[in-house]
């Protein structure tokens, strides 16, 4: 019944609105029937700032929050806050999560707004790959009014196949104005139906505002003869331009990619090479630990992951396989931009949960997983015979410091840490603390807390990490990470850097570093070295001071031989010559003593 109605409506519009072929028809499948409703209106208004032209049709199927408000707009220019574009079809209510709706919309638009090139933009929430099975998580185009239906990966693939059969050609650009859709699994899916398409999408979540349609359409309408590659690049650059100028937004990404590429073939070669040698497990664990993740932490940047393995492996075979995959990725990328929050991403993410328990075996039903060895690679990684623990941190902790240890545990289901040492602790915050999340944990050790609340003493401690793997029925313990808690002081902040007159006759009245403050134990006394370095880099004054805990002292007096310029004050403390305490600080001060004469009885200084 509904199909008949849509058919009649289609024929009506076909008769009423004949269009000559334009250069581009941009179709936006805007599912605003959810919490993104306000952003849908904002984006329609952005489109209206430019509007359609003779050469560029901008057609939007918008479904707003609530019932009975699904419409197809032909976007016309308008600067007001209301959506005033021409409603070419009022569809009452459609289910945007139904692949038939998507296929119908594209077919209808192509028939009514023919053009040389077509771009389809799927506008909504997005969560990457998804199968509609248990437990369901990933997909795109959630429609709250239509029983919260949404397009799964397989439904998107179905819709694209149907579109291809209906319109008899590939779309030039398939864009996702949605979170997390810039992934290899999605590209692979598109390639199955429309191999000549370009995918534009984000590896990371998108800010609520989504794409800057006013910028994109302004450039497209000004240059409607853009090729698909040029428009895809323009979208990526405009997105970057828009968000890079926004304060506080740094975790954004967008890329344009040829979906017809050799990445899947290169992935197979790469993972088969890796899996051929069990010693590569540690390298993979290190790469998984270091690689950039996205808000969905089971998505990683594929190029970055491969590059880390390329750089960390000593095997030429592994390096060659990694280089092959990196080349394939490079060749497929048309444009890629990202904010400073994702400095190492390249434009294509992939599913790689860090632990076995996070892995969703339904992934194996995905076409990409079915056709490639990637899921076998993940299973191989989770089946490692012994856990791998990565720890980074500072092993020498000064009294008064808070020490951080970061790391990851791979090949285990859970892990905990304890700090064991020369004091008796039967319970408390330093025993059997869970490592969460397992693959990116942070341990903090507050020595003040240790000394104050647990009567800790100076000495050597052991940071013990215990990993458990229920499936393999073993407990794995690491007990050789030594933490030395010593009494190396912490240099406190400077209270007043310099007291030098900028006039004449500063002589011995001008002093430098007269308010150095140190905190720590009395044992630091006579262990503090202060140096003053002149603008030429020479140490012109040095002293082992008797600064004691919390005191203040003038440590140098301006000498008339000093020339104007920038002086550096360096303070270091070396309590124990056998430990690199690394307690070092320095600061630069602008001193401009214009010395005209040396006055043994100097005048006062300002």
């Amino acid at each position: 019944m509904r199909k008949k109605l849509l058919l009649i409506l289609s024929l009506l519009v076909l008769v009423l609105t004949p269009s000559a072929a334009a250069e581009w028809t941009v179709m936006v499948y805007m599912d605003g029937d959810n919490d993104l409703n306000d952003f849908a209106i904002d984006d329609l208004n952005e489109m209206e700032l430019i509007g359609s032209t003779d050469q560029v049709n901008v057609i939007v199927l918008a479904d707003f929050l609530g019932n009975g408000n699904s419409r197809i707009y032909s976007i016309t220019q308008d600067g007001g806050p209301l959506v005033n574009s021409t409603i070419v079809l009022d569809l009452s209510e459609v289910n945007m999560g139904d692949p038939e709706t998507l296929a119908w919309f594209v077919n209808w638009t192509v028939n009514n707004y023919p053009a040389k090139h077509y771009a389809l933009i799927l506008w909504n929430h997005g969560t990457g790959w998804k199968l509609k099975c248990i437990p369901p998580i990933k997909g795109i185009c959630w429609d709250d009014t239509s029983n919260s239906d949404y397009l799964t990966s397989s439904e998107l693939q179905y819709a694209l196949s149907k579109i291809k059969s209906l319109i008899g050609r590939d779309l030039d650009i398939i864009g996702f104005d949605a979170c997390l859709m810039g992934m290899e699994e999605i590209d692979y899916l598109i390639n199955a139906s429309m191999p000549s398409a370009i995918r534009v999408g984000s590896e990371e979540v998108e800010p609520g505002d989504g794409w800057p349609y006013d910028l994109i359409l302004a450039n497209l309408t000004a240059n409607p003869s853009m090729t698909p590659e040029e428009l895809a690049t323009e979208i990526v650059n405009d997105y970057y331009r828009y968000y890079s100028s926004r304060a506080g937004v740094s975790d954004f990404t967008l890329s344009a990619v040829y979906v017809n590429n050799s990445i899947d073939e290169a992935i197979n070669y790469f993972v088969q090479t890796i899996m051929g040698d069990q010693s590569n497990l540690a390298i993979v664990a290190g790469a998984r630990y270091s690689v950039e993740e996205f808000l969905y932490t089971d998505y990683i940047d594929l190029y970055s992951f491969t590059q880390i393995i390329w750089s960390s492996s000593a095997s030429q075979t592994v390096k060659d396989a990694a280089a092959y995959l990196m080349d394939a990725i490079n060749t497929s990328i048309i444009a890629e931009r990202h904010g400073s929050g994702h400095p190492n991403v390249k434009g294509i993410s992939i599913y790689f949960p860090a632990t076995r328990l996070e892995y969703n075996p339904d992934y194996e039903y995905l076409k990409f997983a079915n056709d490639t060895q990637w899921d076998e690679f993940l299973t191989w990684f989770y089946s490692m015979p012994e856990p791998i623990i990565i720890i980074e941190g500072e092993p020498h902790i000064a009294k008064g410091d808070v020490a951080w240890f970061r790391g990851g545990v791979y090949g285990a289901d859970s892990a905990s840490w304890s700090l064991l040492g020369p004091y008796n602790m039967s319970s408390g915050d330093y025993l059997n603390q869970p490592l969460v999340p397992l693959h990116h944990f942070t341990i903090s050790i507050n020595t003040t807390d240790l000394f104050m609340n647990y009567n800790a003493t100076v000495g050597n401690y052991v940071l013990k990490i215990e990993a458990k793997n229920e499936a393999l029925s073993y407990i794995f313990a690491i007990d050789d990470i030594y933490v030395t808690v010593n009494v190396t002081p912490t240099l406190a902040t400077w209270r007043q850097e310099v007291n030098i007159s900028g006039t004449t006759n500063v002589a011995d009245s001008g002093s430098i570093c007269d308010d150095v403050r140190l905190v720590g134990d009395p044992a630091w006394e006579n262990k503090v070295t202060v140096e003053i370095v002149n603008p030429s880099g020479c140490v012109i004054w040095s002293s082992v001071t008797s600064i004691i805990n919390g005191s203040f002292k003038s440590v140098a007096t301006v000498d008339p031989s000093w020339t104007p310029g920038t002086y550096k004050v360096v303070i270091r403390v070396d309590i124990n010559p056998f430990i690199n305490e690394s307690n070092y600080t320095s600061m630069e001060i602008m001193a401009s003593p214009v010395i005209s004469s040396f006055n043994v009885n100097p005048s006062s200084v300002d």
Partner: protein
Amino acid sequence: MRKVVLGLIIVVLLAGCAEHEDINMTTDHVTNVSDNVITANNITISQIKSDPSEFVGKKVVIHGIYMGWRGDGPPPVTRSDWVIDDGTGRIYVTGIVPNLDPVKDIGKNLTVIGYVRIINDRVYIEAVKVEIE
């Protein structure tokens, strides 16, 4: 029987203090024994939303149910922001996404620990920890 296995460990010992400054408290899941939850556990979403200025920048613990993307108004930061309802009201959460279905897992109990933030007059929680119960 407890079996202790000698395995592989990679230890990276970093000199200096600079590394400490790189800790991003807003995105790391921190196991921090000295974490100070400034506000009490019984702070409600209603209290936060009725007087946001009182809570902005403070760390709170909210127990409630997962509401997927069923928020009052648009998400404040990203399109993947999600909603928790503690019975007194709903508030968006950003920073960490629980491994839950935004439709079918609505109603699941969880706890959010995070900082109260405000942007464009919209109050939300920037999560540092999310526990599904």
